[in-house]
């Protein structure tokens, strides 16, 4: 049986990978929140000509870019953007997927067949292709719209996951018991079924954040995601591309930030996954 949420987290933290991932994520989150306050605002940099493309030094630990902006400061500001995009988009897609999966799994029959065939069809289209199409069609895409588009294309897997869990739980005696007490569909779905899918849902959300960070970086690198001058990790790699040989630090540090964040998320997500799997024992 599923154990309450606190013990799921506790079990995750018992694994070394889970602890390492969690610590790294906390450090990254604190960095994203606090660092931009302590560092110079990249938008108001002085010394536009002389300070450009300086290698890492005591004043600029990550060096400066072609507009003489402090790379460390931009990586920190980019962390805010990249993480915010990922977290909000995943929250959106997890919510959508959970509701669709819940409805399809609980009502079953024709509803289920129609909904899941649509999901199957949508899954046959690669997500990146869909995103490129949407993003390319909309010139100067605002950040909020980018989040919306990423979120709206990411719920398919979650809906399948939740549906499978609901199909398993639907016949459980505690669901029958609630129905015997007179509970309606809403109560059964949101009080009995959904809370019992939290384990797999948390795993999907965690790994989904990693995916979206990469996706957003990829889109921004192609110049289709977050628009300059707003810093994002993928966009920064793009900006450093032309000076890659002369000033590799401009692209290197945002790249390392992506690797570190995704690695931390996957470490933690894997441990969470294991903890959620072993709950039945």
């Amino acid at each position: 049986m599923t154990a309450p949420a606190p013990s799921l987290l506790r079990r995750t933290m018992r694994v070394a990978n889970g602890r390492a991932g969690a610590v790294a994520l906390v450090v990254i989150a604190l960095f994203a929140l606090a660092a931009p306050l302590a560092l110079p605002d990249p938008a108001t940099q002085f010394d536009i000509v002389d300070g450009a493309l300086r290698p890492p030094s005591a004043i600029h630990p990550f060096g400066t870019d072609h507009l003489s902006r402090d790379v460390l400061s931009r990586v920190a500001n980019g962390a805010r953007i990249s993480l915010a995009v990922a977290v909000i988009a995943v929250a959106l897609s997890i919510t959508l997927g959970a509701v669709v999966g819940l409805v399809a799994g609980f009502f079953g029959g024709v509803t289920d067949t129609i909904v899941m065939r649509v999901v199957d069809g949508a899954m046959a289209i690669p997500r990146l292709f869909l995103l490129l199409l949407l993003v390319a069609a909309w010139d100067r895409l605002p950040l909020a719209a980018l989040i919306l588009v990423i979120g709206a294309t990411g719920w398919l897997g979650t809906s399948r996951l939740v549906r499978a869990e609901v199909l398993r739980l639907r016949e459980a005696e505690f669901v029958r018991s609630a129905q015997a007490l007179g509970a309606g569909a809403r109560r059964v779905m949101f009080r009995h079924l959904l809370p019992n899918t939290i384990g797999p849902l948390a795993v999907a959300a965690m790994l989904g954040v990693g995916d979206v960070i990469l996706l957003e970086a990829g889109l921004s690198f192609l110049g289709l995601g977050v628009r300059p001058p707003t810093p994002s990790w993928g966009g920064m790699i793009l900006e450093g591309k032309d000076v890659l040989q002369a000033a590799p630090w401009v692209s290197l540090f945002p790249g390392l930030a992506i690797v570190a964040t995704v690695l931390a998320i996957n470490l933690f997500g894997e441990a969470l996954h294991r903890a959620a799997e072993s709950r039945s024992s």
Partner: protein
Amino acid sequence: MTAPAANGGPLLDVRDLVKHYRSGGLFQRSTPPVRAVDGISLDVAQGETLALVGESGCGKSSAGRSILRLQEPTSGSVMFEGRDVLALGREELRALRRKMQIIFQDPYSSLNPRLTVGDAVAEGIQIHKLADRAGTARRVAALLEEVGLDASYAGRYPHEFSGGQRQRIGIARALAVEPSFIVCDEPVSALDVSVQAQVLNLLRELQQRRGLSYLFIAHDLAVVRQLAHRIAVMYLGRIVETGATEELLANPRHPYTQALLSAVPEPDPTRQRERIVLSGDLPSPSAPPPGCHFHTRCFHQLRDGRCSTETPLLRPVGATRAACHYAEHSSVAQVTAPAIPNQ
């Protein structure tokens, strides 16, 4: 509203209840339906316990759930307090759920692991808006104490409790809406023997205090003899024998009842009893044998062609009612009925 039981009618009256399960989807060839419940009739008076006994797969749980309309029966009629349960609309049915409750077999899967004990017990009160917040908390505390648990357990989660305690929580949950009738679906089968008696005693106390009626589903005659006023024995979707507990245990007429009874441990070592071991397995309920469902495993000395062609009806034989063509004649095995222990 006056309960018809007051003027002599049964609280629950089930006639010719049928539940068939159809398999096969849109593109599959449909197979013959599984005849889980094949036309059973029973009634339960106010304050009475009727035990529905039979081996696994005989349809007793399907019958219990069909009566409560937790699954829709295929046909038949269910009258509760003089109202036709099967004709009720959704809202009427929800209102009726206050009166008819169920206690489940598995105390581990019948409680939502993510609801506290207090929330689980309060659920029925919330659904039917029987009390405000403070009133709900008071009622939950009183219910927990009534089933023999500490009121302070309300904040804990089910996994902190043993099977017996969980079953008590399940009972409190069912009682929260103040039902008059409860289907007990093998409520002690999953429990240790030492705990079974405690839960059975609790059920009996609650019956006396609250005037509850039970439909007590079990696969074991030993469990029901302390609690049941009457017993109905079910085999492959049909009731094969029914009667008052003492009569049925003392003088079972149907060979199947005799076989079931012989499996009950004899408390008196000086008494000898022959153990009847039925040959073969329970036939598939999607293709039940023609005639008497039991004839493929019957050991009655008089069984003949009539048994496999003509369906025996439930008819008075001695003190019970049995569905056997040769119920008047003794079967091969002479069964000594166990004494009903006095307590």
